[in-house]
């Protein structure tokens, strides 16, 4: 790409120029925004009651704009399927984890799981929630994988896949279930909303955590099994 340095240099110059112009333009645009134009915070506040949770961000994520989150679970799943479709686990140089990592992971993993649970629970009324919890869970998984732990082959097939789709599945079930009994898609009855959201969140947390860990693995765990 930089093979012909002369053109490369000229272009780079042009590029810098362009980018500067762009940066200035964007900055100007941002600065010119009306500071008065309110977002949706008022609406969120008024409808918070009906959403079943008291944390506005969680309310938006899982109720008001729960559909976004549903699709996003799908994104995560697709990324995973995409990674799996590229083949088996890449050939890493196997190195046994050092004693420090080993000990640390033994200590940290349960704690991380605990933290994840807490984050999930707290998400209904304070900062926290499924994604945060899922990420922590995923970190735990990564730690495990780094220290050489692998999933049992028995679990690497259908059970793993069930967990992976759990989040998306729960969303769709919860959303579509009420559809069947005559409601609008993803309209939770306010009485049940809190519990429902927690359940969906729990499923999502599990899925997110496992997906992140699986993504880290970078390939299909059962690939070797198939062959």
């Amino acid at each position, binding site marked *: 790409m930089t093979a012909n340095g002369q053109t490369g240099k000229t272009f780079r110059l042009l590029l810098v120029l362009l980018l500067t112009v762009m*940066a200035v333009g964007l900055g100007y645009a*941002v600065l010119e925004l009306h500071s008065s134009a309110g*977002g949706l*915070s008022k609406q969120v506040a008024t409808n918070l009651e009906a959403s079943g949770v008291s944390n506005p961000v969680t309310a*938006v994520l899982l109720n008001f*704009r729960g559909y976004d989150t549903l699709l996003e679970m799908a994104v995560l799943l697709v990324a995973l399927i995409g990674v799996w479709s590229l*083949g088996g686990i*890449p050939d890493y140089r196997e190195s046994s984890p050092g004693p420090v990592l080993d000990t640390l992971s033994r200590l940290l993993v349960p704690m991380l799981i605990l933290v994840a649970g807490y984050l999930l629970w707290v998400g209904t009324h304070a900062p926290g929630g499924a994604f945060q919890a899922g990420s922590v869970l995923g970190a735990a998984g990564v730690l495990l994988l780094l220290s050489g732990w692998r999933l049992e082959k028995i679990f690497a097939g259908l059970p793993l896949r069930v967990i992976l789709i759990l989040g998306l599945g729960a969303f769709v079930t919860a959303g579509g279930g009420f559809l069947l009994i005559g409601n609008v898609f993803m309209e939770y009855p306010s009485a049940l909303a809190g519990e429902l959201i927690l359940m969906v969140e729990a499923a999502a947390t599990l899925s997110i955590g496992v997906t992140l860990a699986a993504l880290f693995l970078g390939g299909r765990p059962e690939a070797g099994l198939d062959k």
Partner: protein
Amino acid sequence: MSHVFLYALLGVGLFVLGLYALIVHAHLLRKILAINVMGTGVFLVLVALAGRNQDTLPDPVPHAMVITGIVVAVSATALALILMLKVNGATGKNELPDRDRD
């Protein structure tokens, strides 16, 4: 002019910087990182401006959007990284070939 706009401008800066890196660097890892930097810039703008109205609580919708965006970015990055490894495996290089040959 509040600190909110400072963050927002920082976000714009990150976006442009990431763009520059994306264009200039050939190494795929750098490109992927550049995309992530750009994404971060966008999220920063998004979330910073949510708080520009001092009177009310920060707008929660952008926060939710950012969380969604981050997950999307993570997924994309994961796929990109694995793809990069595969490209490396197939071509022996961490760069995209200048031009595809038949």
